[in-house]
């Protein structure tokens, strides 16, 4: 079935550094959405992409449907960026499949 492989499963960053999260898809996806689950458990919308790249502050996301992946780049990480990040991909049949999440911990 349609699957989303999200990596890494866990990530530790020091404040001011950066890294990238990645979701690989087993099939062509129509769109991808990125979320952060914060310490209160709420899902915060970060990006929705049908193609190309978007940038918002210290976050940047890219989606390549042909190559079957999406990335989320975090630069200059801050303590408040800690949380669990999820990607969710929209299949050709308009189903939504979530990745298993990346637990990010930003430390001083």
């Amino acid at each position: 079935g349609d699957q989303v492989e999200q990596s890494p499963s866990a990530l530790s960053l020091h404040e001011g550094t950066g890294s990238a999260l990645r979701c690989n898809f087993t099939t062509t996806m129509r769109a991808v959405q990125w979320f952060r689950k914060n310490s209160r458990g709420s899902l915060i919308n970060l990006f929705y992409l049908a193609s190309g790249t978007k940038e918002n502050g210290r976050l940047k996301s890219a989606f390549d449907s042909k190559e079957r992946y999406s990335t989320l780049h975090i630069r200059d990480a801050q303590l408040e960026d800690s949380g669990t990040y999820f990607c969710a991909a929209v299949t050709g049949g308009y189903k939504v499949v979530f990745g298993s999440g990346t637990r990010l911990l930003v430390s001083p």
Partner: protein
Amino acid sequence: EAAVTQSPRNKVAVTGGKVTLSCNQTNNHNNMYWYRQDTGHGLRLIHYSYGAGSTEKGDIPDGYKASRPSQENFSLILELATPSQTSVYFCASGGNWGYYAEQFFGPGTRLTVL
């Protein structure tokens, strides 16, 4: 700003009891969704709806029913709750009919079945 609310925020139920989780959205979206999220897993789709009166089975519908009495409200019903249904449940709205658009999530309901 999109607004999706859920009630209750926390619920403790007994095995075999009936549980109803409620969701309200003020986004005027046709599509609404119920997911559960378990530690170490992504969200999994239980039921969804294309509009008032419509309910569709998601990927893990067994043990759950759904009800969409109006555009704004979408309920998830556990007729006979079991401990395996202990989880965090998220409601979302977004898009119209069969077409996906950006989803907006409620704050989640933490359900514990003893």
